[in-house]
């Protein structure tokens, strides 16, 4: 292992409701859903009709950009509904699940013995390909281009993040097979980053041919974007793929057992959860029963993912494609009388303008109130404090706002995706929608330059 890389700029937000390292019982729900909206810039083309029977691993839709990229059913059952939104955009493909999951069978084989093309073909046909995310832009990987390297962040520093020690426990064999499969995909290196503060999962030990890096520091030290930037910053024309450790396990299972089985360990966290802990949930599961049983009554927000980058879902919503984390926090849709004048012993702020700074170890209960309206983008020097990149965040954002492609490129847009700016958005005094801005910039670059 190389020496520890220290991340200085960043911010750990200490929230109430971290998961205890115990497991709760999750009863398999009646319905599951696959959501095209979980993927950046995806236009789905349906392969099934309502009423059709599918097995776990049968394709439901493919990407309009590349018809080889299939998106497959997480469980077996009947496709009951294709839910559409405005302009007939497909939001959810819902499956009424069988009692006993029937799996589509894929060959069992050792990926290290397979050719690169065979591995790619296996991942594409089984619906595991979409777990690979391509940078720049943070979109689906292109099977025709080999990446310069593959990066995996082996730990999560987001607020109330689950521990990979728990998630990967017992999955060591699958993880190793998954890594072996990834190795066939690139001539470059596989980089795995671990937390210097300890708690390294057993799955990361004894892997051969993997570059392990150790990172130390506040969030976003655990973001793969931060790690790429400090290990080998991306240049124009380079391609890097990223994948989450729990999805490496799904890849491994495919080769070891011949099944597409996206079951995973999910942390249910947040101040509104009665007993925050872990559950074994299959991707796409309906969460209504879980929320009914585990969440306090009241006006709350359900998030598939963490508070920084997760997606808002309904109480009757489904677990997202990439998520191993569910968060429930109070909604903040109330007016606070002269709140901006209060001493603010309970208010979270990176600045020391509220007296809560006197108590640095406080666990906060934060709601979704924006604490003010959007204003002119004038405060300088604050974004840099939580943005550990050699990039000028405010200047990059401004270049995106005016759509100046050349400047976006020269200021380093290839090195970032939305989540890298999540903390900037949290602490922005002017309440600018920063992740959305970054997303607009990425989509523009993709459209203009491909």
């Amino acid at each position, binding site marked *: 292992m190389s020496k520890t890389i220290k991340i200085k700029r960043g911010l750990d937000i200490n*929230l109430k409701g971290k998961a205890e390292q115990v497991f709760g019982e999750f009863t398999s729900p009646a319905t599951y859903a696959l959501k095209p909206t979980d993927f950046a810039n995806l236009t789905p083309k349906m392969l099934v009709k309502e009423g059709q029977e599918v097995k776990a691993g049968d394709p439901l839709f493919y990407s309009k950009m590349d018809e080889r990229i299939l998106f497959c059913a997480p469980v077996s059952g009947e496709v009951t509904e294709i839910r559409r939104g405005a302009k007939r955009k497909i939001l959810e493909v819902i499956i009424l699940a069988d009692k006993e999951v029937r799996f589509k069978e894929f060959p069992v084989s050792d990926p290290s013995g397979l050719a690169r093309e065979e591995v790619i073909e296996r991942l594409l046909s089984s619906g595991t390909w979409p777990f690979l995310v391509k940078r720049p832009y943070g979109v689906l990987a292109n099977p025709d281009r080999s990446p310069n390297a593959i990066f995996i962040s082996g730990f999560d520093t987001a607020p109330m993040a689950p521990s990979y020690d728990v998630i990967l426990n017992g999955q060591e064999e699958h993880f190793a097979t998954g890594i072996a499969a990834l190795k066939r995909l690139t001539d470059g290196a596989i980089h795995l980053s671990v937390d210097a503060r300890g708690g390294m999962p057993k799955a990361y030990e004894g892997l051969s041919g993997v570059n392990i890096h150790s990172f130390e520091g506040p969030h976003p030290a655990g973001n793969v974007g931060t790690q790429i930037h400090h290990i080998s*910053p991306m*240049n124009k*024309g380079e391609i890097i793929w990223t994948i989450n450790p729990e999805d490496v396990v799904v890849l491994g299972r495919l080769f070891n057992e011949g099944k597409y089985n996206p079951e995973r360990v999910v942390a249910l966290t947040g101040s509104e959860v009665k007993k925050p802990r872990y559950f074994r949930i299959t991707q796409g599961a309906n969460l209504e029963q879980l929320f009914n049983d585990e969440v306090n009554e009241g006006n709350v*927000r359900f998030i598939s993912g963490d*508070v*920084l*980058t*997760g997606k808002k879902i309904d109480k009757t919503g489904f677990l997202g494609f990439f998520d191993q984390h569910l*968060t429930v*926090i109070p909604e*903040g*849709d*109330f*007016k*606070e*009388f*002269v*709140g*901006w*004048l209060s001493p603010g012993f309970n*208010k*979270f*702020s*990176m*600045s*020391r*303008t*509220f007296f809560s700074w006197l108590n640095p170890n406080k666990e906060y209960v934060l709601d*979704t*109130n*924006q*604490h*003010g*309206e959007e*204003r*002119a983008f*004038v*405060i*300088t*020097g*604050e974004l*840099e404090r939580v943005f550990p990149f050699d990039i*000028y965040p405010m*200047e990059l954002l401004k270049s995106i706002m005016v759509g100046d492609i050349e400047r976006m490129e*020269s*200021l380093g847009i290839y090195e970032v995706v*939305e989540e890298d700016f*999540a*903390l900037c958005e*949290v*602490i*922005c*005094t*002017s*309440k600018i*929608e*920063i*992740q*959305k801005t970054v997303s607009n910039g990425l989509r523009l670059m993709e459209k203009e330059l491909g």
Partner: protein
Amino acid sequence: MNLIKNFFDSTRPYVSEGGKFEWLWSVHNGMETLFFVPDETTHSGAHIRDAIDMKRTMITVILALMPALLFGMWNIGFQHYRALGMDADLMTNFLFGLEKVLPLIIVSYVSGLGVEFAFAQWRRHPINEGFLVSGMLIPMIMPVDIPLWMVAISTIFAVIIGKEVFGGTGMNILNPALTARAFAFFAYPTYMSGDQVWINTSTQEGQKVVDGFSGATALGELATTGTTHFSAMDAFWGTIPGSVGETSAFAIIIGALILIASGIGSWRIIISGVIGGAVMALLFNALAPVAISDVQKEFFAIPFWHHLVFGGFAFGMVFMATDPVSAAQTMRGKWIYGFLAGFLAIMIRVFNPAYPEGVMLAILFMNVMAPLIDHYVIQSNIKKRLKRATVKAA
């Protein structure tokens, strides 16, 4: 509290689009958000947000200004009664100053906010909070005896020409408060400089100014004679004549600590500004032997810390140079910007007898230069990125 809430709720239909008083929407919104933090929740991206907003930022700056303002009020009374050869207690001094300064503050806020409200409504924008600070800064950098109509005109000029013509808050090149002062300085020089304006010498029945009284500031004396009868200690505590809020380095340091501790003001600019001023003053010390006149020689030779506590240097570096909009925006840019602001302030002060105080002009000049500094700082980052790409490709 519910009463206020009901008032805003019940009046909202009238100011919404199509309502009878649509032209009051910005004011309505501005007032409502003043009373209530809006119930707006996050709808995209991160689900939680920092509690800080523009109002909190501005109120923190106002808080940081308070020691200098309160001291300034007391000092006005103190200077007044001293000029009359009278001994007044703390409260009498303070109340005298309060009576003189409060109208300045009110005029500055009313005229400035009036323009702001009008422009916000015209552009259909919510009202930006920036003027809350500018409106407090303007009276603090004026001489106490300036006529109120001059304050009003300077303020209106600063808001319109200094800010709104560029597109409003965040688009301005110059610091609005300094623009107001510069306007007053060049439009009404007799009210803004010299030795008549810094101390209120109005007399009542039976009072008269003491014999041999001089109303010159320390810098005024230094520029004409090379020495001053004020000690550096007087200047540090602030018992000297000067603009309303600028005299006490001690009160300003308290404000600086509030700004730095809360993370609102840039410590980089403040520190580098002080370093820049000190370096220039030391250079003058070294150059003293080659000065062209005796007066200049004496002025050159004064210790550098005197420069830091006399005049508006401390106030300018702490409250004016740190304005995030008109200062340099990059970290490295802030070091350069602050250093040069301090450096030039002392240079103008010593070299140019027409302007006994150089801080205002130095900061305004650096405001104009700040985008250039940022340009080169960012360009070096861009070059580094390009170089990395070519080295790797080769």
